């Protein structure tokens, strides 16, 4: 019989978890009459245990003797003291990953010296005191404590609770059936074909369904199937495997489509955006960049960092899962991209994470559409998920960005990036090359398989709607993954495998299918895969996206050593079959063949998509110049806007220094208040070279001009990179597109326009990368970021994230953004134009505008190279790029970082602009720098031809003082700027 152990803080001690819940009840729900809250942790153990054993578990494992009490098979709290108004019990639904439960099971086994046969399940009981009605308790449960998608909850009053508390609850998955294979007749009408695709969530188009039908009607296929004793119709296993392999997520069908593009009278036929703009740019640049090691091939792009060491980087998105369950979605997002890097080449050690989030504003007041959460809850969940993933894995989160806009109410954008370090050779073998060999064993390692995450690959390619499946949600387990990662790197160094890849989207189907391409086939035994619980059909085992799993190709001669090492390191590995050169993906379940697919058809059979793009003209208008009476108030208001204000609250909750490599941290300056432009880490402490990591993101410009949106994003990433001292010669970038559905259909009438924006953005990306000489080494796209429910339709702003990574030859020369010493001269580098369209300043005034920033590639490229030289020669005391909020905000941030003031004069700088436009314009290619004493002349000489204006000096008086024609127009104390900037 299941027993229950409850653990809580001793009654005479405060309960911090209860107190923070109380705070949130007050501040987020505005329920002010709850006076106290306490939290009890409940462990339900499905095992026959003696009273003594239960006591031992409570005493020695589950409770802390110094601060906690525990009870066995009785409520710890509440029954005797009463007085509380409501108790809320929250636990997981069956099948949801319970990490603490799993660890408890292992630890109880260790404590008692016996393996437990049943599960251990955790839940929490929240006791609330004060005036509260049932409705209030239900709001607390639904809006703060439980996500009904993954949790079950129960609410009781003190009287209802008194006698029994809550009944023991073990959310065990009740297994029914399993092991079934069905056949699907494709010799049906088009309408029925589409019906099959829709019903099974295959996300396949009619052309694709017809292509599959034709494959099964082909005489060669029929002959091969007859020989294998297979039915002539496809099995569900086969159809699911094809759909998964052909998913938008895996094949990037839109980026590879033939596009007929029309913009007014201009027409253009584009055969694959990817080949035409992204790959082409890199290929042209790669000829001169011998340090590029592997691009667009593997899970991540790889380049040489220093001789003997390579760096791999990848950025992923996890938007839909994060909309459904912000914490779990973001957690699996960061762990997933970690595995991309771990599974890149023969495996790289993750050395940094990046996170970029786009949310609706946290103070959003409007209605929340069905199935969505308030943006504040989304933000907090996502933050916590990425923090849990990074912190618990020992990977520093070194760089990121936050952008707020109401268009992200339907789907938040959650970009997670990871960089990894690998020796370029191990025992004479190049680590960036991998390939399964015929006869290699197929090993799956890490977590077990459940129904979680089934259809993730196809699901990410559809819009979010009310009936979205719950199986799309998964909860990551950083601990299991950390063990797997340590094991992987150890096995790599011992040369125990020929290839490795992540089990991400598409699960085994994808990982084994991809790995089998190098040797030409495989035989996979699904019945040998370890399951979390029985009851799975073969297609579910093949497609499941249960987390923390990787697939290895292990030579038969090393299999014994591989298994032994795994056992020693507590990593579960299973031999699932063999790679071969049969030309077929052969999948068995017991003695039965359940899939027999031609590898060539599976990987190359997908018909190319043909799409139409048509740009609709925009109606933009520029308002007359704003003759703002008080630029100081404008500046303070800008500093407190969500897109500008301090990110300290989020940065500090991420471990950004673990591994001991961090040289330029996310916050810099005297009191660590200044925002850094880019991160610099020193991955090899015995060397002076550093890695610089930055990003650029300008989604609001999509409303004005998609080409410039992309160009500005590249420029911002480059600016940030150069500002920290990065070397442009050794820089590369990653592109991540998150778009609203760009495929026209009667349901999506502006699809052609959105596709046209995608074309323009790709052109902007291409031109900017070519102009600055930045090769793209990896990328990803997420194409259906829409929410739909009845009349509600919310589409994200077309958004491109540009992540940059590269080298600084001497990290001790890196620049930071804070002013360092009074008297240093301050310069503005680059040209300021009247370009406030899409700016934060206009947004604050409720204006979009028309004069958007146009990047002058040629001029900027020159400036960036000069700036790089100035930093290298140690001329600068500080360097900060101008982005959201323009010059004024950049100056304010450098002052706040240094806890110093600045005396600025705009005389002679404005041209035809009014002061407020000059201060808040967001023209690209600009920096605020302060120059070290004694270096002024050399600096002015170096910068002579690239646009350099002397603004004034750093001052000891803690005030940003800006004058124009002798009159002060801004006079803001560092203290009041900080107050505005740190307000959340």
């Amino acid at each position: 019989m299941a027993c229950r152990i409850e653990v809580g803080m001793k009654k005479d001690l405060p309960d911090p978890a209860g107190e923070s819940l109380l705070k949130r009840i007050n501040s987020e729900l505005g329920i002010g009459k709850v006076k106290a809250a306490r939290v009890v942790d409940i462990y339900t153990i499905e095992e026959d245990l003696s009273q003594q054993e239960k006591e031992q578990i409570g005493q020695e494992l589950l409770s802390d003797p110094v601060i906690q009490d525990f009870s066995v098979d009785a409520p710890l709290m509440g029954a005797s003291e009463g007085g509380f108004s409501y108790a809320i019990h929250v636990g997981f639904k069956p099948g949801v990953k319970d990490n603490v439960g799993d660890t408890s099971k292992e630890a109880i086994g260790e404590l008692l010296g016996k393996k437990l046969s049943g599960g251990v399940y955790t839940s929490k009981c929240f006791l609330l005191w004060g005036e509260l009605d049932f409705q209030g308790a239900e709001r607390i449960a639904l809006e703060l404590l439980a996500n009904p998608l993954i949790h079950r909850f129960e609410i009781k009053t003190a009287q209802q609770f008194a006698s029994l508390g809550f009944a023991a609850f073990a959310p065990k998955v009740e297994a029914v059936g399993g092991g079934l294979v069905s056949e699907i007749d494709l010799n049906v009408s088009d309408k029925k074909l589409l019906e099959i695709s829709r019903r099974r969530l295959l996300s396949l188009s009619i052309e694709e369904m017809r292509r599959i039908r034709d494959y099964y009607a082909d005489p060669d296929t029929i002959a091969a199937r007859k020989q294998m004793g297979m039915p002539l119709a496809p099995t569900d296993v086969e159809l699911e495997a094809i759909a998964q392999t052909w998913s938008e997520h895996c094949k990037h069908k839109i980026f590879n489509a033939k596009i007929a593009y029309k913009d007014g009278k201009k027409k253009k036929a584009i055969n694959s955006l990817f080949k035409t703009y992204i790959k082409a740019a890199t290929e042209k640049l790669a000829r001169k960049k011998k340090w590029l090691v592997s691009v667009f091939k593997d899970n991540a792009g790889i380049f040489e960092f220093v001789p003997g060491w390579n760096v791999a980087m990848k950025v992923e998105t996890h938007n839909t899962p994060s909309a459904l369950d912000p914490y779990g979605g973001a957690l699996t997002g960061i762990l997933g991209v970690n595995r991309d890097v771990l599974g890149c080449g023969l495996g790289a050690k993750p050395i940094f994470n990046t996170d970029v989030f786009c949310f609706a504003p946290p103070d959003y007041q409007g209605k929340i559409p069905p199935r969505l959460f308030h943006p504040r809850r989304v933000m907090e969940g996502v933050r916590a998920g990425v923090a849990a993933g990074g912190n618990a894995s020992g990977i520093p989160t070194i760089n990121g960005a936050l952008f707020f806009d109401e268009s992200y109410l339907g789907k938040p954008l959650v970009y997670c990036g990871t960089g990894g370090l690998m020796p370029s050779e191990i025992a004479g073998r190049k680590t960036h090359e991998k390939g399964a060999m015929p006869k290699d064993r197929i090993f799956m390692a890490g977590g077990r398989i459940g129904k979680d995450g089934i259809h993730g690959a196809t699901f990410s390619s559809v819009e979010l709607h009310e009936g979205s499946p719950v199986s799309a949600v998964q909860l990551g387990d950083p601990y299991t993954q950390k063990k797997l990662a340590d094991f992987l790197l150890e096995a790599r160094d011992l040369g125990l495998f020929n290839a490795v890849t992540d089990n991400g989207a598409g699960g085994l189907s994808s990982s084994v299918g991809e790995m089998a391409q190098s040797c030409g086939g495989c035989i996979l035994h699904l019945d040998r895969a370890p399951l979390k619980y029985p009851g799975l059909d073969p297609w579910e085992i093949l497609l499941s996206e249960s987390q923390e799993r990787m697939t290895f190709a292990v030579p038969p001669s090393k299999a014994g050593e591989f298994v032994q090492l795994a056992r020693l390191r507590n990593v579960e590995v299973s031999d699932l079959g063999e790679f071969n050169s049969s030309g077929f993906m052969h999948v068995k379940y017991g003695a039965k063949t359940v899939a027999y697919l031609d590898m060539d058809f599976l990987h190359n059979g997908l018909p190319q998509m043909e799409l139409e793009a048509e740009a609709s003209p925009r109606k933009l208008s520029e308002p007359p110049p704003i003759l703002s009476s008080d630029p100081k108030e404008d500046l303070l208001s800008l500093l407190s806007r969500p897109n500008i204000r301090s990110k300290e609250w989020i940065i500090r909750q991420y471990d950004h220094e673990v591994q001991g490599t961090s040289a330029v941290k996310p916050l810099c300056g005297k009191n660590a208040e200044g925002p850094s432009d880019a991160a610099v880490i020193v991955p090899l402490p015995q060397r002076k070279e550093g890695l610089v990591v930055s990003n650029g993101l300008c989604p609001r410009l999509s409303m004005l001009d998609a080409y410039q949106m992309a160009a500005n994003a590249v420029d911002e990433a480059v600016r940030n990179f150069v500002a920290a001292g990065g070397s442009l010669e050794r820089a590369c970038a990653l592109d991540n597109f998150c778009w609203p559905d760009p495929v026209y259909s009667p349901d999506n009438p502006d699809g052609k326009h959105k596709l046209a924006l995608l074309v323009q953005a790709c052109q902007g990306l291409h031109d900017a990368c070519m102009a600055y000489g930045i090769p793209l080494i990896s990328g990803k796209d997420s194409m259906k970021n829409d929410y739909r429910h009845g009349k509600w339709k919310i589409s994200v702003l077309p958004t491109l994230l540009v992540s940059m990574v590269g080298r600084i030859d001497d990290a001790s020369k890196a620049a930071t953004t804070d002013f360092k010493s009074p008297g240093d001269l301050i310069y503005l580098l680059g040209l300021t134009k009247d370009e406030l369209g899409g700016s934060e300043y206009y947004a604050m005034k409720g204006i979009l505008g028309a004069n958007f920033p146009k990047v002058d590639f040629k001029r900027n490229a020159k400036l960036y190279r000069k700036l790089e030289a100035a930093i290298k020669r140690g001329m600068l005391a500080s360097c900060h790029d101008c982005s959201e909020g323009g010059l004024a905000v950049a100056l304010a941030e450098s002052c706040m970082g240094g806890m110093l003031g600045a005396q600025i004069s705009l005389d002679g700088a404005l041209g035809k602009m009014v002061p407020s436009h000059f201060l808040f314009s967001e023209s690209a290619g600009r920096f605020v720098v302060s120059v070290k004493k004694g270096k002024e002349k050399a600096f002015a000489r170096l910068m002579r031809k690239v646009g350099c204006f002397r603004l004034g000096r750093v001052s000891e008086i803690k005030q940003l003082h800006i004058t124009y024609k002798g009159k002060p127009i801004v006079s803001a104390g560092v203290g009041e700027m900080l107050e505005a900037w740190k307000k959340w």
Partner: protein
Amino acid sequence: MVIALAKSQKVSVWMKKGADTQKKPKCLVLSGFGLNSEAELAHAFFLAGAEPRIIHFSDISSGKARLSDYEIFAIPGGWSFGDDIASGKVLANKLKSTFRNQFEEFALSGKPIIGICNGFQVLVKLGALPNLSSDFKQQATLAGNASGKFEDRWVYLKPQKSVCKYFEGVPFVLCPVRHGEGRFVAPSHAISEMEKRGQVVLKYVDEKMEEGGYPINPNGSAKSIAGICDKTGKIFGLMPHPECSVLRFHFPRWPEGITYEKNSLRFFENVVKAGREHL
């Protein structure tokens, strides 16, 4: 990889250092089961003149490695067992049920044992710190931060008069804290006893070396206690990360030349010196 890094270590370009001719004590830096700061801790011990080896927990429990072959035992930071149930608890229990005897033997021999962050949590939950009654029973704990949050921020640490010799010649240490469960809690009689016996080793202070509230005391620890030792002074643990302030670039204000790597390094050198006595 961590192993590859440990093997290929050379003296950093970030630190000027003369040739080291003294004998090098061997330092076992524990890894595995979610620990994650072993590489930087091994590097700090390397810089301080030890010969560090990163050894997986299961290599000790399986008998492949023996503690007695080492002069220093260090448990680094990390999230052992995901910090599930309570930080450090499950690893402490696992150590008890696998190589408790080896551990206690090592401790009784007077060789240095160091726990940092998660390693400190393990030592406290193991009862090795403060171990007032010499029975290896848990008497103190590291509870959730008073702020209710995980935080990464830099703190000043002031060595107290104590039986621990590891901070001789160290005026203060500036280094980061990075934890969610670092609030030192113990019954008041235990704290008085620790103070009386000189087992309180480090306190959180501000740059003027004065104690204060949040964020000077970043987690709300009782009496601002950041690090403690056992009655011999040889077993020592702390929440902050001195191994991340041994190189110039580690310090937030290195661009202005404000760095104190010598202080942190001196701590590691003192530990190495204590280890050397057992060669």
